[in-house]
C-alpha cells in the first residue's frame, strides 16, 4: 500500500513541472499580448 505515497510524490512532481512551465511562459511574455498572434496566423504562408 505504500505505493500510494510514492504515487502522490510522483504526481506532485509532475504537477510541479507544469507549474514551472507556466512560470517560464509568463516570464517569456506569452500572456502579454493575446490578440496579435490570433491575427498573425492569418498571414502565415
Amino acid at each position: 500500500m505504500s505505493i500510494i505515497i510514492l504515487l502522490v510524490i510522483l504526481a506532485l512532481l509532475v504537477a510541479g513541472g507544469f507549474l514551472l512551465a507556466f512560470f517560464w511562459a509568463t516570464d517569456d511574455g506569452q500572456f502579454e499580448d493575446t490578440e496579435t498572434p490570433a491575427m498573425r496566423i492569418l498571414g502565415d504562408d
Partner: protein
Amino acid sequence: MSAVLEKVICHHCGENCQESGVYFDDKNFCCVGCKAVYEILSDKDLCTYYDLNQHAGVSLKSKNFDGKFEYLGINEIVDELLDFKSNNLHKLNLYLPDVHCSSCVWLLENLQKVKKGVISSKLNFTKKELELAYSPNDTSLKEIVELLATLGYEPLISLNNSAKNVSKKSNKLLKQIAVTGFCAGNIMLLSFPEYFNLDLDNAVDAQYQSFFLYLNVLLALPVFFYGASDYLKGAYISLKELLAKNTKILSVDIPISLGISALFFRSLYETFFNHGGAYWDSLAGLVLFLLVGKWTQTKTFEFLSFERNYKSYFPLAVQVASNKSTDYRSVESLKKGEVMLIHNEELIPADAILTEGKAYIDYSFVTGESEPIRINEGELIYAGGRQKGDNICLEVQKEVSQSYLTQLWNNAALKKNEVKQDTKLSAAFSKYFTYITLGIAISTGIYWQFNDPTLVWPALTAVLMVACPCALTLSMPFTMGAVMNIFGRNNFYVKNPVVIQQMSEIDELIFDKTGTLTKSSSSEIRYMGEPIIREEKALIKSLTKQSLHPISKIIFTNMAEADIFKADYFYEHKGAGIEGFVKSKHIKLGSANFLKIPKSERVKEASVYLKIDRVLKGYFVIKPSYREGLSEVLTEVNGEYKTQLLSGDNSKDKKHLKGFFETENLHFGLKPQEKLDFIAELQNQNKNVMMLGDGLNDAGALGQSDVGIAISENAQAFTPASDAIMDAAKFKLLPKFLLFSKKAVNIVKLSFLLSLVYNFICISWAVTGQLSPVVAAIFMPLSSISVVLFAIVLTHISAKKLKLV
C-alpha cells in the same frame, strides 16, 4: 447595352477615385501615394496584404513628409528613442496609431522583406506598438520611419517616447495565483482522508495520516510566505505607520493578515502538537480567493492610455537656426535666446517671441478658444500654440520645462494622483471591522479564561480565522470589475475600480464647452436668402479657402462640390469679415456692421452676411452643433447634481447655454490654471467634483478633480491624462453611468451585510471553541463564493434594468 456607371474604388484604401485617380496594373488608385504603396508591395511579392482584407490600406491623400522626419537623422535624437543600441543592432518601439486590421499585422511583420537592414519587426495589435530591430549599417531609423509613413503607418514620435518607460508589467500576481492554486488544489485533495475519520490505531492508516499532514505543511509554506506575502507586508507597513501616528487609517491588509496568520499558526500548532485537525485547506483556499479577487481588480483597458501629459503632444525635435545653418535639435535641449523655425501646422514647444514671419496661432489646444490669433512680430507666443500658415522664426524665452503650459504639470494636484486609492467606504469598513473582530476575539478569550482555560486559545484563534473580511476584499473587486466591463461595453472606459466608487460620491458636475458639450468638428450651417448658383459657390469657396477663421472654414467645407479658383485679392478684417476678388467679382463676407447692412434688413439669427459685387445675396446661420441628447442629459443631472460650465472660449454661446445652467454657474474665458484652481476651491468646500473635458487645456482640471472624464470622438485617439475616457457618442448615457455607479456601491454594501450575517453565524460557532477543520473548510469557501455570486448577479440584474447590457 448600356454601361453601368460604377463607383471606382481605390484598390489600396477603398476610397472613391475622383478625377485625380491613377490607373496602374489594371487597378484603380485614388492617389499617387496609394499607387506607390501598391508598387512597393507587388514589387516585393507581398500582395497577400490585399487578400487578407480588401482595401486594407490607409488613405495616403494629402500626406507629404518633405523634411518632416529630417530630425531622425540626428544621432543624439535617435539615441533617445532607442531601447537597445550596439554597433550592428538597434532596437526600439514605435507607436503606430493607424494600425487597424489583420492585414496591418501581416504587412508590418513582413517589413524585413521590404526594407533591407530591418532584422525583425513584431507588432502588438492592442497597443499598436511595433517592436523593431534593425542594423544601423544597412539602414537608418529615418529611412524606416519614412517607409512606414509611405505605407500609411506614420509613427507618432513625441517627447514622451524619449522618456523611456521600460516598466515591464510585473507578472508577480499571476505567479502567486499559480503557486497558490497549485498548493491549494493539492492540499484539498490530501486533506480528504482526514475528513473520513481515519482509524489512528491502525498502523497503515496512521502512517498515511501523518504523511498527508506533513505534506500539507510543506505545501502550505509557499502559500503563506509567497502567496500571502503582499498582505503580510502591507499589514506590517500599515501597522508601523499607525504606531508612528502618521495615519489613522487601518488598511484592509490588517484584518486579512490577522485571519491568515491565525490560520497558519493555529494549524502549525495542531499539526505538531496534536497531530491532526489542521486548517491547511482553509488557509490555502482563502489566500487563493483573495488573490483572484485582487487579480480582477488589476485588469484594465490596455489599449487606452490614461496617463498622457504634455509630453505626448509635444514634438521631439525642432528646427533651430544658428549662423546661417539650420539643424534639428531635441526640444528638451532648447535654451533661452535660440531661434527656432516653425512650419505650418507645427506645435510651438516653448514660450517664445516672434521674430520673423506672419503668425496665426491656434491656441485651441491650450485654451479651448477656437479662433486663431494673429500675432505681431515682437509679441510673445505661448507653448502649445499651433502655427497656421507660413513658416515663422521664434526666439525662445523659456526652456520647455519652464514654459507656461508645462508649468501646469508641475502643479502638485497632478502628482498626487496615485494617492487617492482608499475610498471612504473601504476605509470605514476596514476600521470598524478590525476593531470589532479584535474586540470579540479578546472578550471570548477573557470569558474562557474564567470558565474553561483550555478553550482560550482555540476559541480566540477560531474567531480571528472565520471573521475574514471577504465581503470587502472579494465582493468589492468582483462587483467593480463587472461594472467596469459593463461600462467598457458601452464605450466608457474607467481607469480602475476605485474610480467607480468615486463616481458614486460625486456632488458637482463640471463641464467644459468646446469639444465636450459641442461636437469638435461639425457645426450646423444654413443659408438663407437669394439662392446661390454653382458658380457663385465656387467664388465663395475660393475666397474662404484663404482664411483661417473657423467660420470661414465651416463655409468652405460646406461648399463641397464647387471648384476652386485663385483669389486675385484677399483681405481679412480682424473681427469683422473677409473680402476679395475672385474671377474679377468682388465678394464680401462678414458681420452686419462690416457689410453696412441697414438696420431694417438685419436678421437676429444671422452669423455672416454675403455680398457679391456689392449686392446683398443672403446670410449664413451657423450654430455650434451640440452633442446628441445634451438637453436630456443636462436636465436629468441638474436635478441631482450642481452643474457648472468652465470654458476657455468667449461667451458667445452664453444665450444658448442659459437654458441648461444657472447663469452664475457659467464661466467663460478661463485659462487652464484658472480651471484647475476653480476645482481646487470647490474641493476646499468639501465638494466631490467630477469634471468632463477634452483637450489638453482641461488636463489640469481633469487631474485636480475627484473624477476626471475625458470625452473623445475616438477613444483610441489622444486624450489627456484622466480617470476615465468616454466615447462622445455615448454622452447621452452619462446619467445612467452615474446611477449605475451608485447602484454598484449599494450592491457592495448589501454584500457587506450578507457577509456580516455569515460572520455572525461563524463567530457564534467559533466563540464556543468548537470550530472543527471540516466545518471551516466547507463554510469559509462557501460563504466567500456565495457573497461573490450574490454581488455579480445583482450587478448584472441592475445593469439590465438600466439597459446597459
